């Protein structure tokens, strides 16, 4: 009996997503049953890494089979979910999905910053966004998508924020490493260009007469939006 099929049967009947640790526990319990045969006993001490490999293999099998459902790992736990394209019928089946309203643009931006840079303080978030985040932070905290994870060891000991398990579930992410372009944004270091940056190439070296000309072009482009607006 292949390990992945045992896992498939478990996930098929499980009432909640199962983590490899929980599956390990099930395997141990199964082996301790009186009627456990050699196969069951042999899997008593199965390692979590083995399970993960088998689960990934199973997920690939399902992917290759192109079924209407797939095996996904959300927040470290595995479950079967339907493919998004069948949503219209499923929505009709289960009724209106009890899902909170979608997040606003500021909330999404704030959440994106926290998710990639956590743990971070409110001031650090505001520094990136350039605006106050009091209101959006309140929303995110209320919805349980972010939480206080400690205090920064700086003056005033401000609260540090991080994302919750619910955040991963809400977006269907396996973990924080699963965030889009996670490597790039986690500790984003914007390379300072080798050549000294000038606001306007040539401007700094051009004589004042040319500057006036530059001003003129700036003024002309300034009037452009106004023209557009009249249309």
């Amino acid at each position, binding site marked *: 009996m292949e390990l992945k099929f045992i896992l498939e049967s478990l996930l*098929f*009947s499980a*009432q909640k*997503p199962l983590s490899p640790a929980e599956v390990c526990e099930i395997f141990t319990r199964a082996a301790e049953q009186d009627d456990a045969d050699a196969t069951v006993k042999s899997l008593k001490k199965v390692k979590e890494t083995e399970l993960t490999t088998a689960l990934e293999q199973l997920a690939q099998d399902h992917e290759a089979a192109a079924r209407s459902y797939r095996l996904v790992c959300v927040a470290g736990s595995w*479950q*079967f*979910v*339907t*493919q*998004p394209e*069948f*949503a219209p019928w*499923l929505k009709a089946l289960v009724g209106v*999905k009890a*899902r909170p309203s*979608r*997040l606003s*643009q*500021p909330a*999404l*931006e704030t*959440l*994106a*910053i926290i*998710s*990639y840079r956590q743990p971070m303080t409110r001031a650090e978030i505001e520094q*990136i*966004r*350039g*605006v*106050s985040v009091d209101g959006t932070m309140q929303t995110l905290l209320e919805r349980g998508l972010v939480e206080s994870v400690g205090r920064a060891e700086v003056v005033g000991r401000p609260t540090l924020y991080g994302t919750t398990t619910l955040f991963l579930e*809400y*977006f*269907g*992410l396996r973990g924080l490493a699963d965030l*889009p372009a996670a490597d790039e*944004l986690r500790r*984003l270091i*914007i390379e*300072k*260009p080798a050549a*000294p*940056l*000038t*606001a*306007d*190439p040539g401007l*700094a*070296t051009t*004589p004042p007469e040319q*500057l006036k000309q*530059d*001003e003129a*072009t*700036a*003024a002309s*482009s*300034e009037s452009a939006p106004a023209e557009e*607006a*009249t249309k």
Partner: protein
Amino acid sequence: MSEYNVKFEVFEGPLDLLLYLIKKEEVDIYEVNLTKLATQFIAHIELMREFDLEIAGEFLVMASTLMYIKSRELLPVDQQVQVEPEEDGEDPRWELIRQLVEYKKFKDAAAQLQTLEARQEGVFPRLPAKLEFASDTPAAKPEVSIFDLLNAVNSVLKRFEKRDSTREIFEDKWTVSEKIEYIIRTLTTRENIRFSELFEDAMSRSEVVCTFLALLELIRLKQLVCAQPEAFAEIEIRRATGVTPIASPPVPATDVAAATAPATAEGIKS
């Protein structure tokens, strides 16, 4: 002004507005003309004021930063403040660009999160109903009644019915107290014993009766508990929990058992 149908976007903050202006110029953030950007930014703030929109402080801070950058640029090159290459963050232009790039990246990330959010709305997990049959089975009978025990012992006694024709006569070498010791001894080595096991070695009807009486006596003394692990399963006998086990049967108990023995035996026969 009211005759114009102006589409006025709401910006999240000064950085959002700057990004919008850069996008309109269709240039890379790194190559943006900050002087031009400053002019446009101020123009936009003017527009906001015309519309009586409340201008947040952040916009004014940004406007002043842009003005500062612009003013530096206006100086002839030989009079410009030379930024030491080592002093990071000293150059306001670089600082602004860095902030813009960073903000842009997160804004894009937010858009991706929004896509994920929308996708996740259409994803339905498999939620099987609870496997009811597991809990539907009747709870294990905790205690076995005297009638259950009598039924059980009667079925054991059936073994000896056939031998009645060729009856051997031998002395009754079994006593209840001896059997009590036997049961206690057996249950010190193992956790439980099946009812039938108790009578496996019984040679005669009277031995079965003796063992049974010993069992009853021990139950009466609350030394043993009879239970059925599940309905219709064989009766199991195990030690009562939380009772100090008796090493040897108390003498009065044996007497009582012996005294009641004939009566009980009659009852089983009938």
